[in-house]
């Protein structure tokens, strides 16, 4: 049972390339029948030989397809994704974003913002990859997140992961409401009924992911989804964060007033799996 049809790995000649390809070989072989490499740059026989050598060293099959596209790196990679029905794009080496660069956008982050398919970003790829142990999954109860959880569960089984934490993050308007003082200051900003309903729905959501031997722990937390996700990842020492997200052309306003995903992109706390469907289902 494959999770994706075609995986593309964005491969740039950087010191981290061997590690990224090693991660790809370790984790992706069982996820899709096809894994291809995408290089944004001009094709030369010498470059191909170098890339193939690194790929084979990393453990990728000899006949791995390599797509070459010239142009602005993120645009070139996205063109390959569009033209070759790639439904999971893998990239790596995400440095912390400089403030000016944040407003302008970097290649990897632009891929996250604009790619029409799911993405898997390795923040610190290793030459000797280890399986994912703890996954944190943030749900918004959308169809995309339902499918993503089913996929995350399958991946966790393949990797023999310890646990998946499924988080439902609820907005926190208690403080705002207090300004009006039409009642007591709400300690948690939410009635007990609401929290109980959300917890019950979260339980249904997790159960609907189907049969699995992986331990799943579900939690409802209040706050800003992007912030809560980052903090939770650090608190449980997770190594993969899964978030559903829609593809959208990023503009200056979404940088100034960041969405959940933009919050996560500010300081990506661990490897990040952005779940997205083609065509969008929600």
């Amino acid at each position, binding site marked *: 049972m494959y999770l994706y049809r075609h995986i593309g790995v964005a491969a740039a000649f950087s010191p981290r390339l061997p590690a990224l390809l090693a991660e790809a070989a370790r984790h992706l072989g069982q996820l899709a029948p096809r894994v291809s490499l995408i290089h944004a740059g001009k094709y030369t026989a010498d470059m191909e030989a170098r890339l193939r050598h690194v790929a084979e060293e990393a453990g990728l099959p000899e006949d791995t397809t390599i797509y070459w596209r010239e142009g602005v790196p993120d645009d070139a990679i996205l063109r390959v994704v569009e033209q070759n029905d790639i439904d999971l794009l893998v990239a790596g080496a995400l440095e912390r974003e400089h*403030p000016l660069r944040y407003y302008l956008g970097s290649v990897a982050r632009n891929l996250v913002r604009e790619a029409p398919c799911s993405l898997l970003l390795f923040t610190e790829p290793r030459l000797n990859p280890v399986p994912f142990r703890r996954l944190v999954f943030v749900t918004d109860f959308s169809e995309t997140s339902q499918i993503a959880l089913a996929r995350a569960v399958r991946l966790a089984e393949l990797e023999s992961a310890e646990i998946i934490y499924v988080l439902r993050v609820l907005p926190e308007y208690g403080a705002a409401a207090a300004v009006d003082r039409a009642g007591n200051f709400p300690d948690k900003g939410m009635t007990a009924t609401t929290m109980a309903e959300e917890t019950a729905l979260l339980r249904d959501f997790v159960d609907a992911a189907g049969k699995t031997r992986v331990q799943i722990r579900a939690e409802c937390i209040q706050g800003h989804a992007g912030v809560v996700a980052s903090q939770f990842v650090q608190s449980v020492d997770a190594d993969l964060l899964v978030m559903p997200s829609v593809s959208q052309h990023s503009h200056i306003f979404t940088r100034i*007033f960041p969405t959940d995903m933009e919050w996560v992109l500010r300081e990506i706390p661990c490897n990040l799996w952005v779940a997205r469907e083609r065509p969008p289902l929600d």
Partner: protein
Amino acid sequence: MLALARAFGELFNRFKQPAIVGEILAGVILGPTILGTLAPDLFGSIFPSSGPVSLAYSTITTLAVVLLLLIAGLEIELSVLWRQGKAALLVSVLGTFIPFVFGVAGAYAFPQFWGIEPGADLLTFALFFGTALSISALPVIAKIMMDLDLFKTDVGMLIMGAAMFSDLVGWIIFSIILAMMNANAPANAAAGHGGLSIGTTIAFTLFLVVFTLTAGRWLVHRALPWIQSRLSWPGGVLSFTLVLTLAGAAATEAIGIHAIFGAFLVGIAVGDSRYMRTQTRTILHQFVTYIFAPVFFVSIGLEANFLANFNVGLVLGVLTIAFAGKMAGCMLGAYLGGLPRSEAWAISFGMNARGAMEIILGLLALEFGVIQDEMFVALVVLALLSSIISGPAMQRFINLPKTWKLGDLLAPGLFIPNLKASTRQDAIRELARVAAPAAGLDFETINRAAQVRESVMSTSLGHEVAVPHARLPGLSRPVLAIGHSPEGIDFDSPDGLPTRLVFLLLTPTNEMSSQIQIMGQIARLFRQEEVRQAVYESDSIDLVRALVKTEAPPLQLHGA
């Protein structure tokens, strides 16, 4: 002032009314309306119009409103708006723009009706009136959303996002109006004077907005962790926030607009940082809300004689144009955004709540001489009335999502005891034919949607069960068709077993939770082998119904 305000606030809370109404009433009692009429000498000695007491009073109320705007800014999170998409943007823009146009047009059409004397500065009044009609009150709206249990719903989030937009745009426009007022105000007017031209003031204002929302936010975000790690907590962050607020207030005063705008901008910058912890916010909210805000709202009642200046015609005129403008703008935005009519009404009433923001605008306009006492009283009535009726009116139009039980959806006509299909695509087709009449939709629509979903990833839950599903527009309630395949069908299941029970689940597009609820119940019930066996052997929907009713306590599904 504080004691009476809190007493009345608490009293009104007892009757489930906003505290602000009680606090303003306390001001009406202490002010010229009651005390000033019954005991003018006592009133004059408590609230002298000049001297050190008057100066201290003015300082305290200004500080109160500055802090009130700080916490209003803390709650602005415009990403909520982007998350809600096109409908939210349309409601925000039209819900702000159309009442603004109503206000400006109304001012020019009937200036004397609104109390503007011939020869007065009509442009400034028109812009003020437009802004007063377009602004919303985020804190009131947040409270209503929580009371109605709506804030986690799409409608609730949409209203919150749109109200944030209205507040931000409203205050930017109002700061520009303040610059115009300042240029026209007499030298002894209450507000500060920067001595700058209108153009310079507007340029400075826009620069401050852009700077605070970009570099300012980034600087605060960097500074907070440093402060939290090196200074006492939460005292260090509180001091930092208040110093920044007063600096922002001073900066906006210096360029010729009111201190509150600087405080509002600082609130947005500080509130946006993830390092601003909930506990710190709570402390700020508590001491502003229970100490400074009541003093400010009492001062509203002291500003005018509410009985002598209650002009019925003017109050009705303001209420009519304010309600009509806001409702028309929001309804149009919701209509263009493709929202159902009942949701459009609920959103319009939600956005119509004005509360404290309206009153602050009115008070400043009164201080600058842009409006007279009668108009001020009418705006206070508008603020209170729109806040009071917003919640009940929304409740009338909103449909809270129902909690669905599996038993509600079982029907004999929707059960196929012997599926002929041998592939999952055929199984979906077979069940879609049965489900179409019950759903009131055509077979092709249902089949296409379910097949598309199935093609993305298998809907098998394992344990010989699969739940192909689709969210469909035009469906009024969930529909469930069940099929039993004695031979079993390959659904690409996670446990590799063939699927023998297929549930085709159709849910309305806007009821996200119903699909999850029903799938969760199916997963829990049919993971029990004895339950599945009973269905296989009897092939009866009645038995399924009986099993659902007697569903055993849910078992742990994962990690067992």
